[in-house]
């Protein structure tokens, strides 16, 4: 229990307990410092990748529950690495942006934030299906409270909707996990993959289809894939800023991460057979999300629908089943985390000043608040996929990947890119340009140092990830190559076995 990953995972949990135990007055400071420490420590996770390339590093594999055999098995590979760092980066930033915004139940808020971080990191590093499921559910609880307690007017409705939607999916996933256990005798992801690779664990076509569907459904709700997305706008609009940021930036990635980590390598045949309609849904989501975002009068809803559109690209990339597609998808997850997280933060800044999310209540913000405007425009440009900023790289790879499979996918998905320019710029124009009213001018102070400290790291990352992709992409690529190879050999094996039902992995 001494390796770095365990500490990165455990510290937020320790912090959760500590914040509850400590007096209210120090809650912010403790959380901030602790999450910063976790972030700095998580940067250390990159070390073995730099030295030895991709692999499963920081493995801890000890028994947790004897019967059924559930293990505390965690490790880190190129796929998880940046997602973990994204979570640890955003937590201190969320503390910063909530500094003034959250003024009731401060202690509980920060405790939940740390619990959320714990759950998120856990999801990304679990190598045991049951452990994964536990962390998956752990994330749900703090987010439910973040929305339900510190949200806006319709927060209860939104929180319950969020909870029920996600539960509906995850229960199915649990059924599938238990079925897998009954069949294979293990919850261990590495073992399962190994058994499948060596042909000791096989499924009939129907079996694979239903297992795939159960996992896919849970992840698709989380992504969210059209038409399972309607919880997202409500949750975002009602959530406090920090909640929106965590939700958009990291929690949605749990779904796409699950697709890459579990659906593709474990059920390759079913994934390929169902790719057509999934991609169709993803493309519908891309265009649909963009079109609906175009007409939203509410900023947060607009950004939420834009998320539906952006996440469609991720799904499209995953189900293109080639290197560029997976790389682009994973890169796009990170990009979306940073740029949409930043967008929600900036919308939150506006809200703190004007106490409104309606675009119509703004106009001419650029005059009193030039720095805020600049940050917003840069983030917007990243979000619409301007080259040299991060989103372009992901979108480009995904579109290129889909072009290799079917050029029509690309044609339709690229329409979403055009539309994204439309809704984003329209919002920017109506919010920031024009004449500012006297009232607005009075309320609209420019960014203060705390806000600058929160937003600048993200702006910097947008540029870095757009210009110097080689810092991040090789590890992702290597991890994806392994997943692709796993899914490939699975398919070949299936083709070579005349009667797949004969072998049973037990």
């Amino acid at each position, binding site marked *: 229990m001494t390796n770095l990953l365990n500490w990165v995972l455990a510290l937020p949990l320790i912090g959760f307990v500590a914040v509850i135990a400590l007096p209210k007055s120090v809650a912010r400071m403790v959380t901030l410092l602790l999450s910063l420490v976790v972030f700095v420590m998580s940067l250390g996770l990159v070390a073995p990748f730099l030295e030895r390339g991709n692999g499963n590093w920081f493995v801890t594999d000890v028994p947790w529950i004897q019967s059924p055999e559930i293990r505390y098995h965690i490790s880190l590979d190129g796929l998880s690495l940046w997602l973990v760092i994204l979570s640890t980066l955003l937590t201190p930033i969320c503390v910063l942006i909530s500094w003034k915004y959250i003024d009731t139940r401060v202690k509980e808020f920060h405790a939940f934030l740390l619990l959320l971080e714990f759950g998120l990191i856990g999801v990304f590093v679990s190598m045991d299906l049951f452990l994964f499921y536990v962390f998956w559910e752990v994330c749900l609880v703090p987010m439910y409270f973040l929305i339900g307690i510190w949200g806006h007017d319709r927060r209860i409705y939104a929180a319950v909707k969020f909870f029920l939607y996600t539960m509906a999916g995850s229960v199915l996933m649990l059924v599938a996990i238990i079925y897998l256990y009954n069949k294979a005798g293990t919850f261990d992801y590495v073992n399962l993959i190994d058994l499948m690779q060596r042909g000791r664990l096989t499924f009939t076509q129907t079996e694979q289809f239903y297992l795939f569907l159960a996992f896919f459904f849970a992840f698709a709700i989380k992504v969210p894939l059209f038409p399972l997305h309607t919880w997202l706008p409500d949750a975002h609009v009602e959530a406090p800023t920090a909640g929106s940021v965590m939700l958009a930036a990291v929690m949605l990635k749990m779904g796409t991460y699950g697709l890459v980590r579990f659906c593709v390598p474990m059920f390759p045949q079913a994934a390929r057979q169902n790719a057509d309609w999934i991609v169709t849904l993803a493309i519908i989501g891309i265009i649909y999300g963009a079109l609906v975002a175009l007409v939203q009068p509410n900023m947060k809803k607009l950004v939420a629908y834009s998320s539906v559109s952006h996440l469609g690209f991720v799904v499209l990339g995953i189900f293109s089943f080639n290197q560029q597609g997976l790389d682009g998808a994973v890169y796009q997850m990170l990009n979306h985390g940073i740029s949409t997280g930043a967008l929600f933060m900036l919308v939150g800044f506006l809200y703190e000043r004007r106490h409104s999310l309606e675009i119509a209540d703004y106009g*001419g913000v650029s005059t009193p608040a030039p720095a805020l405007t600049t940050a917003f425009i840069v983030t917007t440009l990243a979000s619409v996929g301007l080259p040299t900023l991060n989103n372009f790289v992901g979108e480009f790879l995904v579109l290129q990947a889909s072009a290799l499979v079917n050029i029509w996918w690309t044609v339709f998905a690229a329409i979403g890119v055009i539309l994204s320019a439309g809704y984003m710029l329209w919002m920017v124009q109506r919010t920031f340009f024009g004449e500012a009213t006297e009232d607005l001018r009075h309320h609209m102070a420019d960014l203060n140092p705390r806000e600058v400290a929160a937003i600048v790291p993200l702006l910097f990352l947008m540029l870095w990830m757009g210009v110097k992709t080689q810092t991040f992409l090789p590890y992702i690529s290597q991890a994806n190559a392994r997943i692709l190879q796993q899914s490939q050999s699975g398919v070949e094996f299936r083709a070579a076995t005349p009667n797949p039902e004969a072998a049973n992995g037990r």
Partner: protein
Amino acid sequence: MEHASQQLWLIPLLPLLGFLINGLFGRRFPNLLVGLIAVGTVFGSFLWVVKSLQALGALEHAHVEHYYTWLESGNLNIGVDLMIDRLTAVMLLVVTGIGTLIHIYATGYMSHEGGFYRFFAYLNLFMFFMLTLVLGANYLMVFVGWEGVGLCSYLLIGFYTLKKSAGDAAKKAFIVNRIGDFGFTLAMFLMFVHFGSFDFKTVFDKVAPMAVEQTAGPLTWIALLLFVGAAGKSAQIPLYVWLPDAMEGPTPVSALIHAATMVTAGVYMVARSSVIFLRAPEAMDVVAVVGLATAVMAATIGLAQNDIKKVFAYSTVSQLGYMFLACGVGAFSAGIYHVVTHAFFKALLFLGAGSVIHALEGEQDMRHMGGLMSKIPITFAVLACAWVAIAGVPPFAGFYSKDEILLAAHHHHPWMYWVGVATAAMTAFYVSRAMFMTFFGKYRGHHHPHESPFVMWGPLAVLAVLSLAGGWYFKIPHFLEPLFPLAEGAHDETLVYISVAAGAAGIGLAWLFYVASPALPDSIANSLGGLYKLVYNKYFVDEAYNAAIVNPLVNGSRSLLWRVMDAGVIDGAVNGVGSLSRSIGGFVRLFQSGNIRSYAAWVTLGCVAVLVALGMAGGR
């Protein structure tokens, strides 16, 4: 790579440095320092271009420099590569040279405006992206520059942030460009599917041995999609609508971005891809026809505009059409030739117009001008140089390049030549009309015109010299011969005389209308009635686009997708599941009365039922 590294990265990076300094700290700098930094960095990259070109000598082969890998994934590998060949050299000199002049001019023009530092930061950023576009050695690098200049164009058109029309125009420009970029990206994706690379060299080496496509195949599709991109950036039918609106930006922007450099990027890209286009004759025909149609249509609109910048804007669209006509008929070098000469005289026209507007404190309507020749003589003199150049009067700049294009068009299809000549006549007419309305007759405004300062007319003078002598001095087609073999065909003197005569006729007619008998235009406009209205309102294209595309999209999204689909169908289904569970729960709740005896009764009944069932089943 025979030559040592020339550190080409310095060329785009210098303006980027200027952008960073001015953008971050410019607010606290005095205007003079901001101007110095902005002009200095652009002039620095001009000098570096000259130095590199001297070091590279004759440039028989392309000189490529690789810096680092930008993007690698599977078999996709894109480097940050810069390249110089003869085509790049021409573009580089034009961009940095004219860029420097316009920067100098802008320090004078913008001196009274707010946001001085912001303006120059954007302008420098534009130079960075434009130079990346020109220098890029693969399609993706070009695309980076391509999108970047679009962004700067967006920022600069919307520079006057308080004006709603400026914001609208900026947004329109960006989105229309995005539609073009849609084509460009698809072309790139197809290219990768078929050739597995984005590098110019790799792609062209693979395309070169391919046969000319007789029917539409991948090359035709790639070429057509590339042309969609070019049409967006270079304002061709049907995507030209953004350029006239783009005149909302400050005049130096109109000169630099929307006349001299960015809008010619499309022509550059088509010329750069000539290897592909030459093997796709059907795509070439499309390019030529669209170019010609744009040239004619924009020229007719230009005839009836009263805003001096709008006249020149439509003139730009029209001239860009000419350039595409050249590319479409295979005379790529003539197209680039026209890019260069057009950069000279159109930048001059815009800057001169800016000088006029500056003199009249913002007045842009030519009906409120007139008789300015004596009041601002220097401006008149330099504008006159641009006038003769664009009208195709020999031996000035426009004459040479237009001549090349028309001859190539005649060689391709004689009717294209005749349409081109008619357009040339119209061009001469509307430019002359603008000149006459502005400088001749009696002054009709109420401002007090004053001549512009030296920083403004100095660059104008340089451009004036280039407009006069540039065509004769720079033999671009000859220089580009290694890349684009000169079109064969006899140099028919008669055709040259005809086109010159057409230009002269245009000037003469304008003189008749606007100087000799000023009442004539109105009576003609009245007699033409509907036709005049159609042209004056730009064929109602904007209105048609709004009615056919924008409004259905917005209204459809709002009422159908959002309200009906999202709120109605999907949420309805979800809430339906919710209320179903509730009603099931409500029914089941009846059994949970909390009365133990009723539970016991149910238990007893259940036992009895089980016993009876067992009994019926036969005991065992």
